[in-house]
């Protein structure tokens, strides 16, 4: 039992180390700022001005939504990216043939990227508020970090679903982008839920980020962590539900891929 746990942890840690290396093999401080921070800041600015142009004119709304998405992307895409990379280098079948726990295998790859995403998100929050002149209460910052982490977790759950699709389908980048766009559109990131058609607003309740973004906005408006506990709980629950679905799907698709010989659809 303990050995099994240890083995899982080792797979988890080693995979993490690998993706950490892959991530930071080429990242230096300049690249970090250039490639990770600036795109998020430009995204925040773009949507804030789109908000002004459309007469919604609430910079805080767009700052919070887009800064949070910065934390969400890595967990969402990381694992699917790993799978398609492995497919490209023809190592995917080697991974699948190994007896390692799938959860440790994929989650280990995702973790360093997700943590990095949290850091990027915090910087995006700070930078975006400076550029747009949005005041964030200093006391809200620790609670915001918690919200960011919870949102990143929820997105990692959805990321597992995405990864399972990646096992089955070779155009996983397309699916990843579809999910990303859908979140931008429907998860209360850039369009207030009140402006969405009812059916879309209903779907939004089941998406990651929706509740996290709402919690973050309340925090910026002066609420305390305890006030948004319900929203955070919902975000956590949604993330866990997706994670379960994702793991089950990975198992099922793996079996199917072995039957249908679609693993090496390079």
């Amino acid at each position: 039992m303990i050995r099994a746990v240890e083995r899982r942890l080792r797979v988890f840690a080693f995979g993490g180390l690998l993706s950490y290396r892959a991530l930071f093999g080429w990242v230096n401080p300049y690249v970090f700022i250039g490639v990770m921070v600036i795109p998020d800041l430009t995204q925040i600015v773009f949507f804030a001005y789109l908000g002004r142009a459309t007469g919604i004119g609430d910079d805080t709304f767009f700052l919070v939504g887009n800064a949070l998405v910065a934390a969400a992307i890595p967990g969402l895409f990381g694992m699917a990216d790993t799978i398609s990379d492995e497919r490209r280098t023809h190592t995917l079948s080697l991974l699948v043939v190994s007896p390692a726990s799938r959860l440790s295998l994929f989650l280990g790859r995702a973790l360093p990227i997700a943590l990095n995403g949290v850091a990027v998100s915090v910087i995006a929050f700070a930078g975006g508020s400076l550029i747009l002149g949005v005041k964030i209460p200093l006391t809200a910052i620790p609670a915001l970090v918690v919200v960011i982490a919870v949102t990143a977790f929820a997105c990692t759950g959805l990321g597992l679903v995405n990864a399972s699709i990646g096992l089955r389908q070779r155009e996983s980048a397309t699916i990843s982008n579809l999910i990303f766009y859908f979140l931008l559109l429907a998860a209360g990131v850039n369009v207030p839920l009140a402006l969405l058609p009812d059916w879309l607003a209903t779907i939004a309740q089941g998406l990651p980020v929706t509740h996290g973004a709402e919690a973050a906005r309340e925090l910026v408006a002066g609420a305390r962590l305890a006030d948004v506990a319900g929203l955070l709980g919902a975000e956590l629950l949604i993330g866990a539900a997706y994670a379960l679905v994702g793991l089950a799907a990975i198992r099922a698709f793996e079996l199917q891929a072995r039957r249908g010989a679609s693993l090496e659809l390079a």
Partner: protein
Amino acid sequence: MRRALRAVVLGGALHFKQESRNPFFLWIVICTPLVYATMAYFLFRGGQDDATLVTASLGSALMGIWSLTTTAAASTLGRQRRVGILELLVAAPTPFWLTIVPITLALAALGVYSLATGLIYVTVLFGVPVTIANPFAFCVSVLPMILSMGMLGFLFCAAFVRFRSSWMVGNLFEFPVWTLSGMLIPIAVLPVWVEPISWFVAPTWGMSALREAALGNASPWDDIGMCIALSVVYAAAGGALLRVFLRSALRRGTLALS
């Protein structure tokens, strides 16, 4: 001269064929306009008039084109290298820039899918049949618009060729160009000091030409002229950068490696 033209037209056509069979690229040019037009539709719900909607549909179409250009054109050399073709292209006796320009142009030309999707989708979604005030000028404007996108992509491709993850560096400019060129956000909303910067972004003029041709408020021909002039400048700058890069790559032996 005739040879150069042939190289651009034929090379462009073949690369158009190759790239339009890439599902991911097609997806970008088709999906981006859908997403942003939808977003604009929801956000504009307050006071929408036909002109705003037409602009939004054109703007989101151009966003799709630019999106593909940043992700794909800026990393053209990297992609050719990955499939082992870069060396063959360099080893051919055609000047290198003449080999690369058709590739970035072909990618920008995939944007016609964006344009078609954007216009059709907006008609269906908004229920507003998009009327083009000056169809001839509109059709003519499409060409310099594509040219400007392709040449900006070429400039990026040449400028960022030394970055190992040039596609990521390309992504850096996705939102800034969207913001600067008045595709979805009127330039008037931006801070005053931003406007002069947008004058140097060729797609700004391309967007403006298409908008004027569609709405019929002003003549698009000045915009078209600016668009072409800036594209030529981009092409010259890109060509010069590429030359420098190529020499250093042959010297350093980095052509085949990353």
